């Protein structure tokens, strides 16, 4: 966020035309005092691996646990631009720490109901025809706190278990074709090489549709905490099933009912029954700027910007309300809109200086519209903990400070 006054002033100065076009009420600020230019200093020399400006401090927020290896960190979505999450800021959720893996030693075994059990080295996988696609990954526990009416104070805490990267890898169906899938196979078990050998059951239907075995993220190798050297990417499916440090795929007749698809990542209904294999992520949107914890500054033009995504395809429409849901305006979507990826939306806004409540709601290509908390509760009760995609609100106070509208 360019928060400092000088950049804002420069923007407003240069934006005189824009200001009139939008009928803006421009802030009256005096011109900056004439400064004397200092002799130039030489800058830093070239370097092998870049680092961001020391002025930029956005960082993941870590959840403190007794066992830091079984924990999570959240993406600072409030400081995000565009649709790609920098790899270093991609949220984390580990169940037994980040393993140190030598890619030369790593292998991927495909076995079970196959014609030819095969072992692939990382180099084998990289030789195959590759694809690169941006996909979001979202933990199904993201926005878990939003099940309570109050919700979280910042977008990092409320929605930061989601991120979007361009993933490079090979379609899983290509590897499966090499091994030859037997007729009885309907599911597969994917297992990681971390200390707990994290595993999930995945339908063969998904594997043959758009699943990837990825080795690249945002133009370079996967980060260790994102599964280096190989991970499963199941576009649109809950994060936990996108098994990291992928080392084994076993084709099976049915699901295995592993701990993380029974004890966890299932949704308890009010009658005591639980939904199981709730794998697709429902459409969701949230305003990232302005959002809780930020301040708007002076009244006048202020772009509203946010992110929308759906595990079932493309986002087709995002609407934004600045009056708590009284009226809605259609936001502009950043093109191209990609399937199962973050979609950036923006809306021109004139902040008149008073209190405002900002909401966003999205619709995906299946016609699904993001629900309110009341609608979610009517469908699922209050105990399901996961898959909360309620409409989220931010309140702008008269002094320009932004906070959680539900608080």
């Amino acid at each position: 966020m360019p928060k400092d006054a000088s950049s804002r002033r420069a923007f407003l100065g240069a934006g005189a035309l824009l200001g009139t076009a939008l009928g803006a009420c421009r802030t009256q600020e005096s011109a900056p005092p004439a400064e004397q230019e200092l002799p130039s200093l030489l800058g830093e020399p070239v370097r092998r691996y870049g680092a961001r400006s020391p002025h930029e401090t956005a960082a993941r927020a870590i959840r403190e646990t007794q066992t830091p290896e079984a924990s999570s960190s959240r993406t600072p979505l409030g400081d995000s631009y565009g649709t790609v999450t920098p790899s270093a800021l991609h949220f984390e959720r580990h169940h037994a720490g980040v393993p140190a893996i030598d890619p030369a030693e790593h292998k991927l075994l495909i076995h079970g109901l196959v014609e030819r059990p095969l072992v692939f080295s990382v180099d084998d996988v990289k030789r195959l025809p590759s694809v690169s696609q941006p996909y979001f990954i979202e933990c199904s526990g993201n926005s878990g706190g939003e099940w309570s009416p109050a919700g979280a104070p910042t977008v990092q805490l409320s929605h930061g278990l989601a991120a979007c990267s361009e993933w490079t890898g090979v379609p899983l169906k290509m590897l499966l074709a090499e091994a030859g899938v037997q007729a009885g196979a309907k599911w597969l078990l994917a297992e990681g090489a971390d200390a707990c050998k994290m595993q999930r059951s995945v339908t063969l239907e998904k594997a043959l549709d758009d699943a990837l075995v990825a080795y690249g993220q945002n133009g370079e190798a996967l980060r260790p905490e994102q599964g280096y050297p190989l991970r499963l990417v199941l576009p649109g499916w809950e994060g936990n099933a996108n098994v990291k440090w992928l080392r084994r795929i076993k084709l099976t007749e049915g699901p295995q009912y592993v701990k993380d698809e029974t004890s966890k990542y299932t949704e308890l209904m009010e009658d005591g029954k639980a939904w199981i294999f709730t794998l697709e992520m429902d459409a969701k949107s949230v305003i990232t700027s302005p959002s809780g914890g930020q301040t708007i500054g002076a009244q006048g033009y202020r772009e509203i910007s946010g992110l929308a995504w759906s595990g079932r395809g493309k986002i087709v429409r995002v609407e934004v309300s600045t009056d708590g849901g009284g009226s809605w305006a259609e936001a502009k979507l950043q093109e191209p809109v990609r399937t199962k990826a973050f979609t950036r939306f923006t809306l021109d806004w004139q902040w008149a200086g008073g209190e405002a409540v900002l909401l966003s709601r999205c619709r995906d290509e299946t016609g699904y519209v993001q629900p309110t908390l009341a609608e979610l509760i009517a469908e699922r009760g209050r105990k399901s903990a996961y898959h909360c995609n309620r409409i989220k609100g931010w309140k702008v106070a008269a002094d320009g400070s932004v906070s959680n509208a539900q608080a």
Partner: protein
Amino acid sequence: MRKLEARRRRATGELSVNCCPGRKDSGEQNRRMGRRIALWAAVPALAAGIVSAQQYGLGRSAGTDEIAAWDITIGPQGKGLPHGAGAAREGAQVYEVRCKECHGEAGAGGDQVGFVGKPEQLVGEKTVRNVGSFWPYATTLFDYTRRAMPFDRPGTLTDDQIYAVTAYILYLNGIVGEDETMDAETLPQVKMPNRGGFIRDPRRKP
């Protein structure tokens, strides 16, 4: 229906593209090619258009020992359970030394979740989801303990110890007796109280 058709087309389209990087001798290539076409022809016969054609010849075949060493998957019917046995009486000792510091006295919970509960606790104001109240299969308890616990030193328990500590946690829930031996035969027969508690996700599909 349309979707299946599209998927079938995608799959077959994929199979008809270039024959692959030439590391194989041509006889091998022809054999592969023949097999590929045969399998391609067979594709529609397989449910859901399953792909099966070795096109690139990458990856090496996996040895049976290699597979056995890695295949720790245990199915809900007990498929894959190893040899070994144990009962709650021995399991209590394993628990005391290897689990209690995190999961509390007699599975009551501590820094980490507890293990004792009943399905009745899945409704009402304050619900409890744990092994006793919620888990549908006892095999999952063995599988998870073997692959992931104790948290700081997974893989350090023998299969006998894992059967024993599994038996102990089931015993704490009144699901098995103190001297009832758990092994590859008996564990899959244990019916967890919440076995029928799960339903498939009814959310609207695209």
